[in-house]
């Protein structure tokens, strides 16, 4: 008899247990398979350990970088930069007011946009966020305008308004976003 079954009653429950007699060649084969499985698990463990080491190294580098970026002189630089930017925006806002005139500025602030007529007699709308739209076939179409890096928003608005008034041909319709 190479197999038999029995019922076992254990504290954890009642089990049906099946026994199988192994031949010497099956035992050898089982040993080989078990050894291979153990090797695979060791390989897997090594791979995880290597990844873990890499992660630890990266964490150390990132932590050091974060620490360096929080140096007091860097904080001071950021504070100074933010103050300068705030002052620049205030100066630009004052200039925008002078540029548009008291009445134009009030209208712009109240409506949230400026209505501009260009040198070709076409009408445009410049929004408070600096985007430009042009009346084309009775509809406002978005015109692509590149905002110069770091230029305060009110200065960008001045630049867009002046360009529409003097050189509208340099601005073209943006076909991607309408």
């Amino acid at each position, binding site marked *: 008899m190479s197999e038999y079954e029995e019922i076992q009653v254990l504290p954890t429950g009642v089990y049906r247990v099946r026994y199988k007699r192994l031949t010497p060649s099956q035992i050898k084969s089982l040993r080989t398979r078990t050894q291979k499985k153990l090797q695979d698990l060791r390989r897997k463990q090594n791979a995880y350990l290597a990844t873990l080491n890499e992660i630890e190294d990266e964490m150390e580098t990132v932590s050091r970088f974060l620490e360096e970026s929080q140096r007091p002189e860097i904080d001071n630089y950021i504070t100074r930069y933010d103050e300068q930017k705030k002052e620049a925006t205030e100066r630009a806002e004052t200039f925008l007011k002078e540029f548009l005139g008291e009445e134009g500025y009030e209208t712009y602030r109240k409506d949230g946009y400026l209505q501009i007529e260009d040198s070709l007699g076409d009408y445009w709308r410049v929004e408070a966020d600096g985007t430009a739209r042009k009346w084309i076939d009775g509809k406002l179409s978005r015109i692509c305008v*590149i905002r110069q890096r770091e230029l*305060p928003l009110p*200065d960008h608005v001045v630049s867009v308004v002046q*360009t529409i008034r003097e050189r509208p041909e340099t*601005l073209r319709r*943006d076909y991607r976003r309408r």
Partner: protein
Amino acid sequence: MEKVHVRVLNELGHETLELSPEEFKEMIQLERGRYFVVDEETMTIVKKLSIEPGQRIALIPIARGG
């Protein structure tokens, strides 16, 4: 000699320069095509570069389309 007061609208947030009329003309030659030259008094474009000493000028960047 009285200088031309130049305000350049750039990322530095209104750089101000005091230039002689000659220096100003030289600057405009170099920056041609990048700025509108606007008289701050009238807020109109200065077409001819007959800049007077003491005049206040703003250089407004020309916007570019994408």
